[in-house]
């Protein structure tokens, strides 16, 4: 089982805010920092823009982990979007854990535009945690749906 997990390459969706975390990820890229390629980035205006349904829907569509990242408290372009998001995600993560979804799959963090290295480190950490719990099985839809 451990070998199987070592082989397993998780798919992570990262919702990054336009003003800080996306720029941080960009900085990690242009600075040629190494981080695992398992992440798919979705750029959003603010971490407060992320509806918890995005996270649920991502899990349903088969991703193994979700990262939501925004500006540090006090840095939000919209003043307090990140602080409202912090409350929402505290409740969401707790709810998902309550129904039995592994908390290792759901991540929330602050990354500023200057923190390319921190972004890379957080991703390492997220991917490590998801690798530990293996491929997502709960909440994954088995029926193909016509779009």
């Amino acid at each position: 089982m451990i070998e199987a997990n070592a082989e397993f390459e998780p798919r992570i969706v990262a919702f990054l805010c336009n003003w800080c975390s996306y720029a941080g990820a960009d900085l990690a890229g242009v600075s040629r920092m190494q981080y695992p390629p398992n992440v798919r980035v979705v750029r959003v205006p603010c971490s407060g823009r992320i509806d918890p349904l995005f996270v649920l829907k991502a899990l349903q569509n088969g991703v193994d982990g979700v990262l939501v990242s925004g500006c540090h408290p006090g840095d939000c372009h919209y003043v307090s979007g990140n602080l409202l998001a912090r409350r929402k995600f505290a409740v969401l993560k707790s709810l998902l854990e309550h129904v039995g979804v592994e908390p290792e799959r759901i991540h929330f963090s602050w990354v500023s535009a200057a923190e390319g290295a921190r972004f890379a480190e957080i991703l390492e950490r997220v991917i490590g945690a998801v690798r530990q719990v293996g491929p997502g099985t709960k909440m994954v839809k088995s029926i193909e749906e016509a779009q």
Partner: protein
Amino acid sequence: MREVEEQLRSEVVRLFAEGAIDLFLGYSSSRVPLRSAACVLHDADGVARLVWNRTCTPNLAALLRELLRSPPGATGDAPPRIGLLAKGCVSRSLVTLMKANQISRESLLIIGVDCPGMIDRHKVAARVGGEIAAAIWSGDDLAVRATGSGEHILSAEDVLLDDCRTCAHPSAVLSDRFLGEPRAPRRDALDDPASSLTEAEPEERWSHFQGEVARCIRCYACREACPNCFCTECFADASDPRWIGVTTDETDLALFHLGRAFHQAGRCVSCGACVSACPLGIDLRMLYEKVNGDVKVRFGTDVGTSLDEPEPLCRFALEDDETFMTEPGKGGRGMGVR
């Protein structure tokens, strides 16, 4: 409850006579045993239909938006003044709806009562082991005749809704008139564990959750019974984006219930109306009590008890908890927040 029921009827007659209300919203008995229905009176003639007993489970606040929007009894341009019977949870729903700008205090005349707790017909059915054919009350005892299993005597206390068992505010928190004697909030009831699941292992919790939602037939009766479901378009009905697939896949059911549970955070007053409305007796409480307990512990919100305090997810504090957040280099497991 008998005396309160009598007082209620005469109070409603008086309010109509004085012209203080255009409509009255209360409960009437229904043909289904052990169920009461919401009932709208336009004049004092139907006052004998009003009941107040231990089967008055619907949350009357859920009907208000509809009544205020297309008022059947309204004359002219003035909004109708609606009188309604409010037990503890209904009054807290009213506070929640006022804060969300869904109803206005001026249009309501609230008759507050103390609620001894409602009975859970799913529990009754489980006790008698059959369909409930008829039920007769004598005081707090209930004689139930079930199809195929004869007659059973039950005590109301044994078949209370779980939400009523742990209710902290049995008396209306907001009212213009109060019938009977108000009771002080039950502080001891506040921290009752929401669900037996809290202590269970993750896999156990998951299989319970899966087992419950798998029975859902998506009738959305829980949503219709809920005063908090006032969205013009529910995410469950949205077609672009279509959050919930039109399939029989269990994850679609899970998504509906998790999405709805999240929307209840900071708004659910634990009235149990959804639990009573569910035709399949799904354990909805495991979800709503969880988010409610969370906002209580994390943000100090006792839902529906203050008109001034904004909803917990519409405000923030700089010192809010961050222990659930991911930092580089913290240990592997134990990232849980429960």
